[in-house]
């Protein structure tokens, strides 16, 4: 993990004439961005982590050693040869639980993110594209949502609405879109003013055509970067809501595994093995998504590649020529 987060300074200028899939040029061109993303080592590491977790979740019915509903060992039995990760407070095998819980947790995270991205992108595009009173109204609403501590509102809604996985997904998704809306709005506002968009508008293209054919493809990568980061937030929030007993008590997710362990006093029993695997699984998933999301964002933001004061450039800044013969 030594150089994961180091986005190596890339001196080359984006090929100005390169035509991306959307027909656009410049640093947001689709192919250029994809190339930039795949060049970074953090992308590979992130994709491998997420891929492994996904695979193990899909294969969990085949590879999990014990049932997750019938107890197979003693209460809080420590890790042993038969139960690699020990047992939880109900005598269930922790390894099987974590493998099973992964799928549900990831589906919850993904569905909530889908809701949030749909709302966020719609608000952002409408607000940025139309401007005027639409913009003022939508951004005012966004501001209100942004300032309210989301988890507290989630707690209240989920508590009144009743504990269920579906409610958790809807509540997380419905409250998580504000950041996306703002980022997309800013991007759309700048795209709207580009020459080719104005030309297409001048040629008589409808609003719908401009938005779907010319603007959405341009904000696509940004939306993906946002979605990948949003999944981490959604999974995180799910564990928090589950910990407060607001998720479906019968569902096995990474969040409910930790909640059940706490509920059955794993902390006073010193049974760290009932908590740690699920917690670490969440952490790995979040790190994986974060790395991928960050490298997309870095590829989209060329400003970060220049640093006039990095440790390497401080002693000898190659203004002209390669390193040895630099002035």
């Amino acid at each position, binding site marked *: 993990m030594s150089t994961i987060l180091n986005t190596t300074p890339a001196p080359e200028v984006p090929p100005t004439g390169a035509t991306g899939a959307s027909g656009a040029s410049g640093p947001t061109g689709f192919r250029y961005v994809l190339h930039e993303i795949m060049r970074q080592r953090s992308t590979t590491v992130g994709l491998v982590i997420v891929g492994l977790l996904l695979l193990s979740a899909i294969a969990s019915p085949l590879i999990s050693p014990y049932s997750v509903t019938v107890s197979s060992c003693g209460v809080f039995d420590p890790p042993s040869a038969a139960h690699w990760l020990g047992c939880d407070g109900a005598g269930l095998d922790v390894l099987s639980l974590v493998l099973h819980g992964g799928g549900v947790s990831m589906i919850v995270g993904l569905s909530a993110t889908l809701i949030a991205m749909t709302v966020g992108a719609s608000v952002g595009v409408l607000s940025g594209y139309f401007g005027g009173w639409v913009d003022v109204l939508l951004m005012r609403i966004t501001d209100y949502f942004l300032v309210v501590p989301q988890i507290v509102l989630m707690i209240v809604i989920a508590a009144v609405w009743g504990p269920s996985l579906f409610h958790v997904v809807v509540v997380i998704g419905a409250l998580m879109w504000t950041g996306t809306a703002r980022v997309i709005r800013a991007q759309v506002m700048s795209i709207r003013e580009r020459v080719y968009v104005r030309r297409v508008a001048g040629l008589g293209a409808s609003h719908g055509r401009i938005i779907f054919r010319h603007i959405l493809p341009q904000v696509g990568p940004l939306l993906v970067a946002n979605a990948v980061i949003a999944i*981490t937030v959604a999974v995180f929030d799910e564990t*928090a809501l589950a910990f407060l007993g607001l998720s479906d008590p019968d569902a096995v997710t990474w969040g409910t595994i930790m909640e059940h362990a706490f509920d059955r006093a*794993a902390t006073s029993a010193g049974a760290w093995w009932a908590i740690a695997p699920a917690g670490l699984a969440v952490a790995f998933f979040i790190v994986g998504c974060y790395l991928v999301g960050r490298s997309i964002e870095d590829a989209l933001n060329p400003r970060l590649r220049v640093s006039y004061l990095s440790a390497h450039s401080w002693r000898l800044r190659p203004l002209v020529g390669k390193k040895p013969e630099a002035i």
Partner: protein
Amino acid sequence: MYRSGYVLRRVAFAVVTIYIIATLNFLLFRVLPGSAVTRISRIPNASPELKAAVIHQFGLDKPLWEQYWIYLGQLLHGNMGISYVNQQPVTDNLWTAFTNTIPMVAIGTILALVIGIAVGVLSAVRRGTASDHIGTNLAVLFYAFPTQFLGMMILIFAAGVLPVAGMSDAFELDPSTWGHLLDVGKHMILPVLTLTLTLFAENALIVRSSMLETLGEDYILTARAKGLPRRRIIRAYALRNAMLPTITLIALSLGSIVTGAILIEIIFSWPGIGRALYSAVLSRDYPMLQGGFLVITVTVIVFNLAADLLYAKLDPRIRA
């Protein structure tokens, strides 16, 4: 000096937000399925007469707008109702909890800020070196740990060494103020440690990317060309400008401070507002839930307002 227009607008926004939140707080409990009316008589086989009596006692048979009017009026008088569980005024319950939460959260947040800024600046300035990798990777790791996981791990492995539950020892022998404070301080170490660890990471990552962006600005190049010493460039040119976006982003992360505080209070049995909210959820104590929601939200809004005003004071460009 502020332009009064800017301050007025921000204050007006905060007041309107608080009003909307108060209204939402009223509506949520009446509009959502499984609302207060159906859950209020929690006796499974309550007779219709009993149900009607309970509904009448809580004034839920009045028209909605009249309930709303009474609610707002009482709220302005600081009356948030009576807790179902201990029959005490919600305001009193919450006030005790609030005063317990504030020192813990304040110390944790300040520590997280100091450590986060230090780590962020160090990694940005030494970008690409070993200290950058160690700093950022640690930050990402702690950013990824679920708060309750970190809290429970710390609890399990520190049990026996430091107090892990509650705020003070009921059997404390030293009756003096100092003895009590020392006792509370000891109980506070682990919750504050957990909060700091979960919060510093986000701050460090924000400060790092903000610093990196600032270090790429042309005025840094100019400052270097003038031959200013490195230390001065970092302190006077880069850090000052990098702190501007950082203030906003950290103000926006108040939400995660609240989340962390709630989970940590539950784990370490800290008798604060997060724990009050949690027990309100468990016992379906709606007045406490409503009150807790309102108090936390208003606090966050006020701190956001403070950050906005601070931002305007630091950056003259924003005051237009």
